[in-house]
């Protein structure tokens, strides 16, 4: 029974036009169903013939899942809104530039034209052992191929590892956490629940086979941005090898409100690329409250941020990298003025 990767196996394709219809299909096919948003993560799994769903439910034809709408003093973004649509939206550009920066850092223009915000936050990890179809913990086995004395694990986790050392690849996830976004989930039974962005993601300790709280049959329908952090002082940075089509080695996203006296009134800060879920650094947020947004505050806070980090053989750099990015999020980056 030899392995072959490519081409996509056959499946049944459905294009429902309402969330209810989609969920009826998900119920009908149960574990054999696969939800298709932009498809950029899905097609990898399907073309590699590792995942073999019986039925694919394409959400692109459901109008209520698309678009950006005002909601209270904030915004509600349909989960199927493409990253390009998010980036081009006037209110996002004006008041939520953090999300704009994060979404623009994702992959490539064509991917942003097709990839959705909901898909971006819900995508699976890119651990190359897991994606190769090896039977690791995350794939239901009982080994982590990335955390052995011989593994090549430069891209893997320094925090929150629990058997699995994969990291979350999403660029928009930390930005949404920093913006205190709320994720709207429609459960299989039709009930709706809203979870905070930082609680949307799960680590391997909680559930080693999933990246998010979504259970079979659940659909992420929208992402709500509250007004509380609109227009705050934002910082986003993604460090990667290539400037296009590359996942973050470490990324940081923050929103900060600075009082008249220069002291930080409140701040939300999240990093990604260091753990299986994007991490909100609440201890750092608490620490910087009331302090000036300067180097001294940044240095103390950054050291707190990396407390407990446990590097693997090839990813020790992530510790100083995360520390420095947290620092930058707090104190900013000096502009350079080279002659040319």
């Amino acid at each position, binding site marked *: 029974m030899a392995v072959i990767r490519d081409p996509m*196996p*056959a499946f049944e394709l459905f*294009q429902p036009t309402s969330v209810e219809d989609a969920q009826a299909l998900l119920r009908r096919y149960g574990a054999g169903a696969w939800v298709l948003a932009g498809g950029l993560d899905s097609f990898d799994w399907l073309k590699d013939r590792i995942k073999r769903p019986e039925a694919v439910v394409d959400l692109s034809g459901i109008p209520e899942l698309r678009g950006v709408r005002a909601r209270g003093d904030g915004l509600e973004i349909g989960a199927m809104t493409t990253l390009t649509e998010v980036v081009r939206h006037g209110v996002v550009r004006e008041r939520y530039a953090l999300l704009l920066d994060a979404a623009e850092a994702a992959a490539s*223009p064509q991917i942003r034209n*097709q990839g959705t915000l909901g898909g971006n936050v819900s995508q699976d990890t890119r651990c190359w052992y897991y994606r190769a179809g090896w039977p690791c913990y995350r794939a239901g086995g009982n080994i982590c191929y990335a955390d052995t004395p011989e593994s090549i694990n430069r891209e893997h986790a320094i925090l929150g590892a629990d058997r699995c050392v994969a990291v979350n690849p999403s660029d928009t996830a930390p930005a949404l956490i920093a913006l205190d976004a709320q994720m709207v989930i429609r459960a299989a039974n039709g009930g709706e629940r809203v979870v905070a962005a930082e609680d949307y993601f799960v680590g391997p300790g909680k559930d080693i086979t999933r990246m998010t709280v979504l259970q079979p049959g659940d659909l992420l329908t929208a992402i709500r941005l509250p007004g509380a952090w609109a227009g705050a002082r934002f910082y986003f940075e993604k460090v990667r090898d290539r400037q296009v089509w590359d996942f973050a080695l470490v990324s940081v996203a923050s929103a900060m409100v600075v009082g008249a006296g220069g002291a930080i009134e409140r701040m939300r800060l999240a990093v990604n690329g260091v753990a299986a879920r994007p991490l909100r650094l609440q201890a750092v947020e608490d620490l910087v409250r009331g302090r000036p947004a300067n180097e001294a505050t940044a240095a103390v806070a950054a050291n707190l941020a990396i407390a407990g980090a446990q590097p693997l053989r090839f990813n020790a750099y992530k510790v100083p990298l995360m520390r420095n990015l947290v620092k930058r999020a707090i104190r900013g980056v000096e502009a350079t003025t080279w002659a040319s």
Partner: protein
Amino acid sequence: MSYSRRNFIKGVIAGGAVATSAGYLFRGSGPLFGQTSAPGSVERLVTLNVNGQTRRVDVLKQETLAMTLRYKLGLTGTKLGCDRAECGACTVLVDDVPRYSCSVLTHTVRGGRIVTIEGLARANGALHPVQQAVVDEQGFQCAFCLPGFVMAAVGFLKTNATPTREQLAHGISGNLCRCQDYDKILTSLMRGAEYLRRSTT
């Protein structure tokens, strides 16, 4: 063995016979497609709008747009470089938006206007301004990536007709060139932007 592969195959065999597809790649006669149609699923015979023409095509459910174009419609100008949404060689326009056709299910663009490299030139053979610019500037080397780059540029220029060199570089950054002729490609596409502006004013 609890691995799904074998069970899956059994499932597929049990699925029964299917209609044959007209194209090359998925033309099989056997029962192995599992292309039964469950109630409510998509119809295989679809109408596509490609390069301004309406084409009726028999499309498998899992078929990508690149495969339909290349193997069903004979439009081999659209290249497959990686088939994994990483290189951009397969870029086409769907409703003026550049997309990786290797990673678009054909069924999801039934209602869209699809334009490929073959659809850029006018019926009389006059090249599209961006194509003309590539010819004039001798853009590209091996040119396997060319159709994708040109389509990405044409799509990008619809959103920004007067880009700077840096902006255009960002606009076409979803395309790889292994000759790494990026400088000359950018020069030729900047010329293309200029031709395009001239042709529309």
